[in-house]
């Protein structure tokens, strides 16, 4: 057994103490969010604020009494009467856009990655170089022309505007290509000897083999799209096309009183739950995705 000297032990104790405090600090916003989402209006207005909920309620989500009586305010699901489906419509918009971009973005990136990793053709290295170089371009440079182009196409306020410009993810292509380089060529050759076309080889042999990479990359893309604020901010005008990040920007109005805190926390909770669920399901891939993309990148 190793014997550690007393200084190291003290250092470890102190370090652990600090880290525990930091961990608690990390949890504070989450605690405050859950707390606020289930408090009654009266409790939200309480001074000093309460740290344990006395009478938990779902009124911040849906309040059957609505605005009228004192100590009541409209719940999140009642807030948007002009939009069919109200808040659920915004949830749907965010889900649909994030999922569609993730799936189609992964697919076209994987196709391109396969060709770049396993085929040889004139210009291959040129294309690869361009894709890698493009990863340095910050979105701030392309957002203005993209906005102008999307306006000219008449896509403002449509799903097209949210989906199509987001499809080509160079970092996904790069990441998947690096992963595919390690696939043994013999497997692909076996497929070719069986007379399978390249597309068939891609679908039946390559895609199943890169499953873990697809999951890691998919989670990464999904989280980014779910969080995307700037692009919907410039391309979406109408109420019913809004995504969750756009709704969140309205949840912090400095002139609204404590009454609105419950609704804001409920919205924050509903916005963060989907990604947290994915995280719980795919912890390993999340962490691997980060470690791998960074170390290799």
């Amino acid at each position, binding site marked *: 057994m*190793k014997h550690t000297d007393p200084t190291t032990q003290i250092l470890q104790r102190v370090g652990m103490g600090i880290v525990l405090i930091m961990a608690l600090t990390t949890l504070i916003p989450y605690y405050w969010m859950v707390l606020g989402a289930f408090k009654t209006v009266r409790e939200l207005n309480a001074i000093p604020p309460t740290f344990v909920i006395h009478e938990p309620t779902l009124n911040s989500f849906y309040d059957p009494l609505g605005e009228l009586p004192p100590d009541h305010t409209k719940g999140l699901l009642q807030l948007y009467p002009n939009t069919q489906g109200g808040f659920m419509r915004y949830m749907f918009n965010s889900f649909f856009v994030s999922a569609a971009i993730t799936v189609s973005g992964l697919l076209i990136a994987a196709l391109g990655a396969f060709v770049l990793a*396993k085929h040889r053709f004139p210009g291959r290295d040129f294309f690869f170089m361009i894709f890698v170089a493009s990863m340095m371009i910050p979105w701030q440079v392309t957002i203005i022309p993209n906005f102008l182009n999307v306006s000219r196409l008449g896509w403002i306020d449509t799903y097209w505007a949210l989906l199509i410009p987001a499809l080509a993810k160079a970092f996904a292509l790069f990441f998947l290509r690096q992963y595919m380089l390690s696939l043994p060529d013999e497997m692909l050759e076996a497929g070719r000897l069986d007379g399978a076309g390249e597309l068939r080889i891609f679908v039946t042999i390559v895609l199943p083999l890169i499953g873990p990479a697809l999951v890691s990359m998919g989670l990464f893309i999904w989280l980014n799209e779910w969080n995307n604020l700037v692009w919907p901010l410039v391309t979406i005008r109408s109420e019913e096309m809004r995504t969750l990040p756009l709704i969140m920007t309205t949840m912090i109005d400095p002139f609204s009183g404590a009454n609105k805190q419950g609704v804001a926390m409920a*919205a924050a909770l509903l916005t963060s739950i989907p990604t947290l669920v994915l995280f719980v399901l795919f912890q390993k891939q999340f962490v691997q995705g980060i470690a791998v993309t960074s170390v290799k990148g």
Partner: protein
Amino acid sequence: MSDRSFSVSPPVTRNTSSVPIWVRIWRSRVSYMMLLPFLIPFTIFVVMPLVQSAVVSLYDYSAVATDEPEFVGAENYAALLSLELKELPALFDEETNERMFQCGRRKLPQSEVAAYEAEEGELCTPAFARARDILSEGYTDWTVFNINATQYVIGARDTRFWTSISNTLVFVFFTVIGKLVLGLMVALVLRKQTITTYILRLIFFLPSVTASIAITVVWGWIFRGQPYGLINHLALQAGMVTEPIPFLNSAAWTMPILMIMAIWGGIGYNMILFLAGLQNINPELYEVAAIDGAGPWQTFSHITLPLLRPTTLYILITSIIGGFQVFEAVYILFASSEGMGGVLDSGLTVVPYLYDRGFRLFQMGYASAVAWILFAIIFVLSLINLRVGRANEAY
């Protein structure tokens, strides 16, 4: 795709140097076809906008006005980057040629200063010429500073841009160091794999996988300027303040709040990277060090830290790049119809400024120029990152 009858097998390349290029291209058509689904959106929404952006940045291009965009060459860049340093001359009375002093709101000659100070009980300071009389046309004073009793003024044609740059630099400096140091500390403490460290790692990683927008809103309520805001409540309770602090409406608090949020959200990510780096360190090194009687500090500074150098540099540069692009938190907490940067532009960083020009004032050309200046900064940092990466491989 039905090309199995052909001898197209793309990946199998014999020595092809004797085959003409167009034959090789024709033989590779399957490969090109499979690249197209990516290449088309990539060309339209990445490559083309890049070129357009460069062109637009040379125009006076308003997205709302009906006038045609006007070509202005490098004028947008000149307006953004122009700075001017001038000495502010001391102020003298025009008739008596006496040195003038600033006493409260009045300017008094030196002879009357003593009387004023005695009467009002406040000190006078030497008066200087007004900055706007000194600066060239088109320039306004951005900042005034004092060296050896000489007053200097820095004028800029676009003072808000320089405010955004200096705010960004402050933000980057403190958040990058904060995230780096705390991330490393957490990684070192949670290095061993036990059930406790596993749970703690998960907790620290949470902010990286939560919708940051939602958490920003929660922070906004935590920092509320009323007593029901969590921080104000705690501060009042602890007796640190007597009145609630209007955190979100006070210029002094804008940057600290942005930085706290950024550091809070970034520790876990850096922790993961450091843990990966620590894993690559050969444990035998530590055993040897222990046998040699090295203390914890020596072990850390001679083994752990040098071997974490690649990870540290990577984190350093990517977080600087990320810091330059901060936007969401500023927008959600501080943007208003008057500007994106909060009270007195105290939270105005580069990207919110770009957004302000482009999508509040609709000056597309000007905003594009801001974007290219940002791009230049990020490009240089990325090049450094590449070089560091290469050096690390040799490491």
